[in-house]
């Protein structure tokens, strides 16, 4: 792998950039791998990378039906935070946060992880109770965070309307300074390049059409480019997980919903943190390019159309203008939609299945991007050892039958 650095950039400039290498190969599929990862999004690529780097399993294929990083990795609003309520979820996202903090160097790819902090606003007394509960739990779980009052919020975000005249005045917020945003595409590309360097085969334009299952054990996959064998298969296919599980005769408690986001035209820097509000229902940050990146909740119906309904956009922008009246004259440039696979308890599934050797990693709903490295890491550990990693264990499919849900709805009312 070519090492990336400022010095390298200068060197390549002098040779007219004619000597840059491919960031990843375009290999011919082998007949057999030790592990197959289905799904070449951020989570799948991260899983492959950590399998190779941390667990010494380099004979790995990542099978992607389209282009790597072309799904939700490329469509989210890039927020990274770990201030989740329940111990199980907090452990998972904090594990991820720690990996984020060294990710650019680890991958030798600048994922532009910007720890500019995330505010979760409270507008009602119950909001504030929930915020205090969550921040107290975070603190005892070793996750940074504090509760701010309205003045504290105003000091951090001078352009926000924190006055009492607002329809739902800001009463305070939780503040996680280590949280922030990252450059979404770079995460997929960085993991792909680093995994490839470790020998992982990334097979783009390759579609899994079925599983080879004998005697309750996985033996590989059928694809549009022929059969590929492996005794361990991990599916990391987000919105398509249900379809894939169906091929193995497994049902998952997932629904795929449209999740919309939008950006303004690029502006000179005006907002230095990420601001989220469950109550007025919207969140906003400003990208390094200057766009205001805005989102809200999912649309209520199932949809794979990568678009949602217009009123969701209207309500989101109403919320943004309620919080930031100065943005009324700014213009919205573009909107789009992702397909998020949601679980009934707003937590993911990281699980074995009743097919031995077949694992699923899905159901991240609106929280997938921020979990990318952590999800990949614990999933890789689970695939490598044949036992779910302790952080992943609470997210088994079994919980929907025993009742041991990890209900993050309260903390996840707004997509993020």
């Amino acid at each position: 792998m070519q090492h990336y650095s400022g010095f390298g950039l200068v060197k390549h400039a002098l040779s007219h950039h004619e000597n840059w290498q491919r960031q990843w190969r375009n290999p011919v599929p082998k007949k057999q791998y030790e592990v197959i990862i289905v799904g070449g999004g951020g989570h799948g690529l991260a899983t492959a990378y950590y399998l190779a780097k941390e667990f010494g399993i380099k004979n790995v294929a990542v099978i992607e039906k389209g282009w790597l990083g072309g799904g939700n990795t490329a469509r989210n609003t890039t927020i990274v935070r770990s201030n989740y309520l329940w111990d199980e979820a907090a452990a998972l996202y904090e594990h991820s946060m720690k990996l984020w903090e060294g990710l650019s160097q680890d991958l030798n790819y600048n994922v532009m992880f910007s720890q500019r902090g995330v505010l979760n606003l409270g507008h009602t007394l119950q909001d504030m109770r929930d915020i205090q509960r969550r921040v107290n739990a975070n603190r005892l779980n070793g996750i940074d965070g504090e509760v701010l009052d309205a003045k504290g919020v105003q000091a951090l975000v001078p352009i926000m309307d924190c006055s009492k005249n607002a329809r739902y005045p800001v009463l305070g917020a939780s503040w996680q300074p280590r949280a922030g945003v990252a450059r979404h595409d770079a995460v997929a590309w960085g993991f792909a390049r680093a995994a490839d360097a470790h020998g992982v085969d990334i097979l783009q334009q390759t579609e899994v059409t079925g599983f080879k299952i004998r005697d309750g054990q996985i033996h590989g996959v059928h694809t549009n480019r022929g059969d590929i064998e492996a005794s361990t298969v991990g599916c990391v296919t987000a919105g398509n997980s249900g379809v894939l599980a169906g091929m193995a005769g497994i049902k998952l408690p997932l629904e795929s919903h449209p999740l919309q986001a939008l950006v303004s035209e690029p502006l000179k820097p005006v907002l230095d943190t990420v601001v989220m509000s469950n109550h007025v229902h919207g969140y906003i940050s400003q990208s390094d390019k200057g766009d205001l990146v805005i989102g809200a909740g999912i649309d209520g119906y199932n949809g794979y159309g990568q678009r949602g309904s217009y009123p969701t956009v209207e309500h989101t922008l109403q919320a943004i203008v309620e919080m930031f009246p100065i943005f009324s004259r700014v213009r919205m440039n573009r909107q789009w939609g992702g397909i998020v696979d949601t679980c009934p308890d707003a937590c993911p599934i990281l699980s074995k299945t009743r097919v031995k050797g077949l694992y699923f990693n899905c159901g991240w709903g609106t929280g997938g991007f921020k979990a990318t490295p952590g999800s990949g890491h614990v999933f890789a550990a689970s695939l490598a050892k044949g036992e779910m990693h302790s952080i992943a264990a609470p997210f088994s499919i079994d919980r929907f039958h025993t009742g041991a849900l990890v209900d993050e709805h309260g903390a996840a009312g707004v997509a993020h």
Partner: protein
Amino acid sequence: MSQPNRLGQGGRIERSRKLTFTFNGKRYQGHAGDTLASALLANGVDIVNRSFKYSRPRGIVAAGAEEPNAVVQLGSTESGQVPNVRATQQALFEGLEARSTNGWPNVQRDMMSLVGKLGGKFMPPGFYYKTFMAPASLWMTYEKYIRKSAGLGRSPMENDPDIYDHLHQHCEVLVIGAGPAGLAAALAAARSGARVILVDEQEEMGGSLLDARERLDGKPATQWVAQTLKALAGMDNVTLLPRTTANGYHDHNFVTLHERRTEHLGETAAPLNGRRQVRSRMHRVRAGRVVLATGTHERPLVYANNDVPGNMVAGAVSTYIRRYGVVPGRRLVLSTSNDHAYRAALDWLESGREVVAIADARSTPDGELVEQARAQGIRIITGSAVIEAKGDTRVSGARVAKVDLDGFRVVGGVETLECDTLASSGGYSPVIHLASHTGARPTWRDDLLAFLPTLVKGVSVAGGAQGVFATAEVLKDGETAGRQAAGEAGFEAPSVSLPKVARRRDGAACALYQVPHEKPTLRAPKQFVDLQNDVTAAGIELATREGFESIEHVKRYTAMGFGTDQGKLGNINGMAIAARCLDKSIPEVGTTVFRPNYTPVTIGAIVGRHCRELFDPERYTAMHQWHVEHGAEFEDVGQWKRPWYFPRKIDGKTETMHDAVARECRAVREGVGILDASTLGKIDIQGPDAREFLGRVYTNKWAKLAPGRVRYGLMCKDDGMVFDDGTTSCLGENHFLMTTTTGGAAGVLEWLELWHQTEWPELQVYFTSVTDHWATMTVTGPEARKLLAELTDIDLDREAFQFMDWREGTVADVPARVFRISFTGELAYEINVQANYAQHVWEALFAHGEKYDLTPYGTETMHVLRAEKGFIIAGQETDGSVTPEDLGMKWCVGYDKPFSWIGQRALTRQDTARTDRKQLVGLKPKDPKVVLEEGAQIVLDPKHAIPMPMVGHVTSSYYSPTLDSGFALAVVKGGQQKMGETVYLPMADGRTHEAEIVSTIFIDPKGERQNV
């Protein structure tokens, strides 16, 4: 103030109306009818901006929505600022002030351009992914500087003085685009009687006809435009919306139209007849059929230094000359792949300026326009193209060479032509943005060298948007589309007679996107593809070399098409370059998908009136006026404004919340208080199966509740988790009045309907919301009976009217139902009267209550009083993960009911049946002065290292004036078995509180006070 490039005649501007405007601090003059762009060109302003990444000087390239460079900051006042206005779409008005968005100290002499010049080489696409990584600690500093160079314009820092609104429109036929196809379509559809909306983004309708050379019925095309618009305006089934952009096409023919109502008049909307006007309006249109007559965007050619000011797309040159009477230079070189672009040269020549040459990439061009040009003596260099522009801040020459299109190379020598303007045309891309908003992927047509829209139901396309270019055919195509659309909507449309247009003979165009240079692309001077984002052909080539092979990857790696113009000029060229680098065809590297908005839309217009005081409804009770007058502080509960507490003014000083709540609490415990409880949901339930139904949706039993009696009930979802609670009264054998929580009212009614309509339609029962019909006032405290007795004819004797009874009669002469239920633990009467009488009854209670010091109290006191009694609040003690037993409310669960009620089955699931679940308990702080923080986490071992195992949290916590101590409710793992044990609450400030687990009932455990 002369306008050097303004022609002495021609154009559609009002020459008599001169307008003064300011650009980058300098004053200029233009005319009514100008755009800011045409006025700048008229004044010979070459540089309008500096580019985003390399800080290169940039000029105006196009004349419409596709313009990438002329993106300026508008506004003379802080609150009137508008960032990123496209000068080509901004009508000129008197006093307009605009400035470039980039460039320091100014756009003419930009220091950053030095960085761009020297550093440009080191900034290939994605360079930021490859550097700024060491040392890791410095990234946030690097980022600060990266961000500094971000953005185009700036946000206003003051609130918007303007207002916006929405108009909900419905029509049978929506025609988008009022060029020849759209006008013909609208006319045809309108003649059928169908409701037609015709919308066009420009200041003036007519589209390409406004600068056409063709004559319609032997007259200038604009005459037919005027005549058609007049006819349409005269029909009351037609709505004409000029200056309005169809910015989003959504499912099932829902289209958003952004109408700019005053932006052509001033930076803020001036009042009209003393009334506020909206600055812009969003039409939310539901159309039966949509006709897309959106025309085409011309593609420029990609050659070296094609960004130097003076490079323009050919059609824009014609537009400026013919519509605005502006010729944007003196000496023109045209580089083209097609006949149509020859118009630019002919128009240029006719305006009296010099056409140096036309470089035509085709070896034997022979169309009608080519012959005209030859006849005019214009030099045509065939088989050639401009390979490089010369010049720095303005084009000074064009390097022209013979090119081998198939071999992608320059053949033969290079000739340098002196010129100041370089127009180019690589063909015409149908404007298919709207058609692809709902996910339909366009398909490439090799014969047209263009992507054509794939249509969903209910949409048709006409004219240039579907690759029909000749005016006569465009008109016919539009007419057919209009007639068909009306027909499909059930209206019979007669055919419309169309004007005669001479058919022009055009030669075939050739495929040319990037022009080859003598040097390989990576070594040649920059050849720009996306001007706004500084994406070059070399950048695209590099991306493909690095493994970015799908067009989606290329776009993301290079940022191509992500600007405010969304790549209208550059995307197809970029795809062609990627295809060349990958040795694939254009459709093989992917297709191009567009998302709303077509052009950026003011956020305020999307918000409409739903802001400020109208952001969200405020719901009020019938006594709200009284609460306001009596100084209540309000709490937001759902959309309701509920009195939170009533601070008194004592000696001119307003009580603190703590003091007010303590006073209110004491009043209820010792005297009498009154609460406005009108916000609770109330559902009238009637029918022979009402009782059975209640038994199924509540956890407890309802079979034996007699008329006149009231019962408390808990509701679960079928996962066994509590979601609402309240009392329900038996009014008659088949008649019940259910109350719900304030926030849960709508949800519970829908919940009941859901089960009735989908699972148990055989049950004979009806539910009707009566929440707003009744006003509810809770009179509570030891003196409640005495007070109420003064006003009512109901027998309040403790035996005749017992706890959990309800009675009817009058209160203050008003018919009332009175419920003897208590959420305070004190003697309490909930008085329900028809809400129109509420203010009277409320005031009568105070008139009589004065001697008892009747004290109004709010939600905060209500919370303290109920918590002292261990009464839960659904949504505060519960969070969707709490069962009735977790709440210690087994007494409210009827396990032996015959029907397996909602939630019952789930309670015996493995995890739900655990006995060590988090359970509701009381907490008594060891230090009575401590009021625990709500949300504080509970641990058993406060010395445990982080992460510290947590066993629960505080759900409610208050100071109790009755106990003179803090107290709390909490959920604790296995808490019901831990009575008397000590738990710890480590706080953020470093202190650790100690508390004892106690019963949830702090006052009057036997419940005697409410029974007096």
